[in-house]
Each structure stands twice: as structure tokens, then as C-alpha cells.
């Protein structure tokens, strides 16, 4: 049990470090409050993106975002001023966000490791199946344009 807790804490710690850096650097989004560990997304439709990984560790990273935040993230990343991002734009931007968060977190978790990341799987306006029943701790990041929920599941490592 202690090893599992240690993995959870490690996953949360790398997410707490990686998420602000990625968001601020390439998505121009700020953290507005202290992150809340152990805070799953609410029920209801959210935009989600998931990246699986294997190698020195196996698992996946998932993020969930309300539509308003997804739109804001896409507008910022793609530098859109007078036009709304398309559904395709939003999907690709969220996928890229999940990809970067995963790589950044894993690089912190095991700098001497080796990982292969899957292509992100992104779904817009999807209801998560029992988000409070996952094996990892969701982290809620309150951003200026809405909450972003991030979870990192570390299933095993070499």
C-alpha cells in the first residue's frame, strides 16, 4: 500500500510542477488559485484528452476541461483573434496539451527513463465514467478561464 501511495504522491507532484509550466509557456494561461489535489471533475459533459505511455513506466495521463476553457486554450495557442476555433482546432489543441503535459510529467518523474507516448485520444463534450472512482488523484487547476482537471495514472514501472 505504501508503494502505491508513493506512486500517487509522485504522480501528483510531477503534475503540480508540469501543468503550470506547460500552460504558461505555450498556452498563455495562468493558474488563478492554489491547485486542489484529490478534486475530480464534476459530472456532466467535458472535453477530455488521454495519452497512454509505456517504457520505463506504464500508464496514462488524462485531462478534462469545460468547453469554455477548451475554446480559450485553442484561441490562445492558435492566436485566434476574431474567429472561433473549430471543433477540429479544439481537438488538436487539447491533444497537444495532453501530449505536452504527459511528456513533461514523465520527464520529471524519471529523467533517466525512456518512454513511448501514444497519439492523444480526444473527445469533446463527453461525460466521464465515474471520475471519482479512478486509481489516481485528480488535480483541479483553477485557471482564469475555467478549471482544468488533470490525472496521471502510473500503473507500473521497470
Amino acid at each position, binding site marked *: 500500500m505504501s508503494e502505491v501511495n508513493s506512486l500517487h504522491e509522485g504522480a501528483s507532484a510531477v503534475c503540480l510542477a508540469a501543468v503550470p509550466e506547460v500552460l*504558461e509557456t505555450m498556452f*498563455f*494561461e*495562468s*493558474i488563478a*488559485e492554489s491547485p486542489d489535489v484529490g478534486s475530480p471533475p464534476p459530472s456532466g459533459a467535458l472535453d477530455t484528452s488521454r495519452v497512454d505511455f509505456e517504457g520505463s513506466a506504464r500508464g496514462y495521463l488524462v485531462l478534462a476541461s469545460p468547453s469554455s476553457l477548451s475554446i480559450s486554450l485553442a484561441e*490562445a495557442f492558435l492566436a*485566434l483573434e476574431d474567429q472561433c476555433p473549430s471543433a477540429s482546432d479544439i481537438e488538436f489543441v487539447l491533444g497537444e496539451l495532453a501530449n505536452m503535459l504527459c511528456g513533461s510529467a514523465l520527464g520529471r518523474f524519471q529523467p533517466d527513463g525512456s518512454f513511448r507516448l501514444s497519439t492523444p485520444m480526444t473527445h469533446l463534450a463527453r461525460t466521464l465514467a465515474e471520475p471519482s472512482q479512478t486509481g489516481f488523484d485528480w488535480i483541479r487547476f483553477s485557471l*482564469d478561464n475555467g478549471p482544468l482537471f488533470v490525472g496521471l495514472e502510473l500503473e507500473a514501472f521497470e
Partner: protein
Amino acid sequence: MGLVVVGVGDCRHALDGSDTLVTYALGSCIAVGIWDPVSKVTGLLHFMLPESRSEIGASASEHPYRYADTGTPLLFRKAYELGAEKRRLQVYLAGGASVVDDGGFFQVGKRNHTAIRKLLWKAGVLVHGEDVGGTYPRTVRLDASSGTFVISTPGKVDIDLKATPSIHGAKD
């Protein structure tokens, strides 16, 4: 050669190529300096908060330079009116430190930095140099004739971002 002081929540442009714009005591605030090497049009904005919507009432319209989203467009538009051209402008940032008294705004220095970077990215402008973050105050001098953007901090060596345009700044 004149010294033009830019106060907190203020913005000034140098009309005479011999002037120096200066702003003091940058804590969590950010100074945005712009300089056109051909026309010598120079501008310096000292803003306090990222967004004007954080303030209620008439404050935003009465004090547009307090906020990145209202002050920055005015900084650039005035410069264009004076003869600057966007393609030639050099842009520098300084400030955004972590401060003890943040007025109730979470990590306001960092948020100011992110806000101005977002505005510039959307506007199609890259930053030539910046010195942001840390926990120390900064004073900035922007010289209109040479475009030097010198940052002074007590106990530290001055940094001229024009001479060394790589990104400076301490991580919190």
C-alpha cells in the same frame, strides 16, 4: 537629454530621440518597453494587473494603463501614430516578481507575465528580451536614442537587454 518618469499604471512615449524613459519599483507589475531603431519612437508602459475585467466600475476606462489588456494596445497605437512601424519594433519586458503583498491576487507577477505574453503572441509580436520573476524590485531605463533597456536591482549588476537579449529572470 530629458528624463521622463513613467509612474505605476502609466504610459509615456519619448518624442525626442534624446529622452530616457524611466520607471521605478517594479514588483509584481510589468514594464513593457518598445523602441523603433529608425524613427527612435520609444514607449514604456508600467501595468499592474493582467485584465481590466478584474476591476469593477469605471476604473478600467479611467485608468487603462493599469491593465495589460487595455494598456498594451494603447502603448503600441500611440507609437504608430508617432511614426513607429510594427515590423521594426524591439520589445522588452521587466518585472513580474513574486511579492508578499499581492493585493489578494494569486501569483499576480507571474499572471501579469503570462497575460502580456499572450497579448503579444496574439498580436504577432515576439519579445526581444525579458527579465522577469524572482522576488526583487526592478527599475527600468529605456533610452530613446540607443534603445538600451537597462534593468537595475539593488545589490545586482545592471542588465541591458538590448546588449544581451536572451531571456533573463529567476524562477520562483
